[in-house]
């Protein structure tokens, strides 16, 4: 269990960093898929089955595939990373500082034995909760649609806004004809594939 968790964490980290490092966008999408997969494995290991399946179905099944389609359709040219002389060292410096700070704080917090810290904590077990455990989906439903209903509504508004935005930015009107970049299907099909 512990070994598997560490393995999945390592896979997640490696694939997430390869998403950024790899120059081919197609490869980075594939690594994104790998990172989603390992994240859902981690969730399975933590016995959070519903969320893991959610990850598999929504992120892998829909969003990552959509990403793949978009990357294949776009005509992205390969370009070597430009190492700017000013930005790169400054960025590395800032990133390293933040990383060291966060890592130090994490080390301080998690270095202690947490079992000792909570010795005042009562050892009372609520058997009622253990006996009458609820399934995952039920709990998610309860939390989403009763407690966090306001947040769900705001998130719905955000999605609605995104739909309006996409419709507006891509719709053809007579005023904008010729001025907005449009998709030409034949050209897209005739060029050679990204792979």
């Amino acid at each position, binding site marked *: 269990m512990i070994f598997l968790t560490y393995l999945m964490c390592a896979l997640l980290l490696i694939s997430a960093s390869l998403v950024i490092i790899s120059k081919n966008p197609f490869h980075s999408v594939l690594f994104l898929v790998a990172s989603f997969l390992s994240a859902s494995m981690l969730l399975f290991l933590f016995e959070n089955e519903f969320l893991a399946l959610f990850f598999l179905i929504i992120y892998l099944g829909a969003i990552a595939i959509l990403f793949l389609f978009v990357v294949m359709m776009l005509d992205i040219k390969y370009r070597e990373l430009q190492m700017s002389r000013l930005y790169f060292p400054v960025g590395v410096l800032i990133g390293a500082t933040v990383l060291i700070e966060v890592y130090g704080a994490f080390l*301080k917090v998690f270095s202690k034995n947490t079992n000792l*810290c909570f010795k005042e*904590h009562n050892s009372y077990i609520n058997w009622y909760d253990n006996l009458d455990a609820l399934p995952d989906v039920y709990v998610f439903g309860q939390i989403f649609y009763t407690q966090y*209903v*306001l947040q769900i509504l705001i998130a719905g508004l*955000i999605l609605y*806004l995104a739909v*309006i935005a996409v419709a507006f930015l891509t719709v053809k009107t007579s005023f904008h004809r010729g001025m907005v970049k449009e998709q030409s299907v034949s050209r897209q099909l005739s060029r050679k594939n990204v792979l």
Partner: protein
Amino acid sequence: MMNQELFQIYHLKEMSLSAELFLSCSILQFTFYAVSTAYQRRAGFIILNQQVYYIGSLFVILSLFLLLNEDLLIMNSFNSNNFIINDYLSFATKLLICITSVAFLTIINISFRDEPIQNNFEYVVLITISVLGLLLLCSANDLITAYLAIELHSIAFYIMSAFKRNSSYSIESGLKYFIIGALSSAFFLFGSSIVYGCMGSLIFDDLRMFFSLLSLPTQNNLNLGSAIIFDPSILSCSAYLGENFQTNLPQPYSTTPDNLLDWCFFNYEVSVLSQSFPSSFLQASCNEDFLVYPIFSYFFIDFLTSIFILDWIINQEFVNGLFLIYYDVSFIKSFSAFEFFPSLSNIAKTSIESSLSIFYQISELYQVFNAPILTPIDCSMVNLDLVSIGFFLICVSLFIKLSIAPFHFWSLDVYEGSPSTTTFFFAVIPKISLFVLLMRLCYVSFYEIFVNDFQIYFFALAVLSIFVGALGGLEQRKLKTLLAYSSISHTGYLLLSFSTGNVEGILMMFYYLAIYMISGLSFWAVYLFLIQKRDIYYNKNNKELGDLVLLKESNPMLAFILAMTLFSLAGIPPLVGFLIKIGVFSVAIKSSAYLVSVISIVLSVISTFYYIRLIKILYFENTLVGKLYVPIRTQKALLISVLALSLIVLCFDPMVIYLLFYKAIFIAN
């Protein structure tokens, strides 16, 4: 009888977001209406231009009306599962946002009349949705709600800045803003996840409670009285008595506050339905003599729950009851608000008075036994470094949104590239609600961390952004970028008065914000109403400084008003800008930040240069060739003169806005 009325209040309390609910529903309705008329081929693609702006301003006016008529404001309570705070501060800021956005909508409606006709009703939808997001952000009591509100308004902003689809500058600025916004929300989410991991809650008052428990003096060996172990990981409060009483008691229980709240309402419902009170839980936990009644989370004690509990306690008539009640000022405050609340006047006062007397007896009981109600957290258990990193990341995200100096680079390009009306909206309206969120973070929840560690950095960032705003604007020839630099320096002044750490500073910050919004409205109204007289309309709307030459010949009043607004932004005495600047500096000096205030006064003198240079271009250029502008109409003239007059009037009578925020700040404290 009483129970029914209490339930009515309970439902009313859930309706306290009525302005926002109304605005969102009407936006949905409006979009369907507009789509079905504007994109219908059979109707011949009806042009919706003026009407939609009228409808949008009507929506905002009606939600303003709902806001003004909200009686529940005095309850000062937390609503919808404690995710929304409904206090006077949010009321005042929402009021200001609504008024300025109505003025904004009116100005752009009038200014669009001289432009070629387009069918873009989506712009109004975007504006109203972003106003909705700003309103929600003002009353957010929770990091998740705040995040969603920020996302709501900033997604609308990305689209608004990319709105002119045939201009590549506009598309570029939209894309830039989108990427920077994604970075900022990544910081926000990372910071809030760290905070959640360390402290177990995201609600601002929970966090405040955590810090207040940390700051209590430690008493490790208590023989008598209660003890609460505040578990930061799951925020469960377990309560038990001291050793003397421990033998008499059943085992302590632990629960999360939300469960307790649900439990409480559940029991109340049961009592209403059956008039009995089969509270299995309490009877399980009470012995012959003692009733252990833990209510510990701060946010949990609000108006209604306390009434429910006290009502129940009175009904039970425990003679020897011992109650552990976390006792907070807000409890008493809610009762004082209770007297002002008109719909509650029918409820029998006696029961409440008796419950209050019981409550006082309890507190006296505690004083007699010398038993602290709350015991502090052992500081060795908690490490605050990680929490402060989370706080820092959230602050960085908000600074990116506010374009404070090291994080300001996006704002120049975005201001220059996006359409003028959008720049107007960015520059004037959204700052206030971000500052409200920053205030709730720094002065309510993370006050300890802010005062101990971060105050000096806030000062440094304020001075840095004043510096950047003062020196960056000197070289600029484009008017909008100049305004972007000016906005950066004004944000620096706001942050300076914000980080002084006392009540006057925050009060001054909100006052400054209100005046800044009014003078921004005035400036941008003049900017939008200057439409060049040309035969062919083409897309260049941006103005350079030289375009304003000879405006005093073609339209002397407009030039005068522009000069007056610039003087006000620079802070020259007979105008209101002077008043706010001197207020900020005096607050900074009062809190003995001498070096900071001296530096910022010097930089403010430098930044006066570019305002004065604009005035020089307006009045003292010896050229004979200049741009001609379309003469402005009566409505425009009326609007501009009202805005410009307010700049003078507010200087002689500044108390209107001052009092609005005075009350807000003092109630919030």
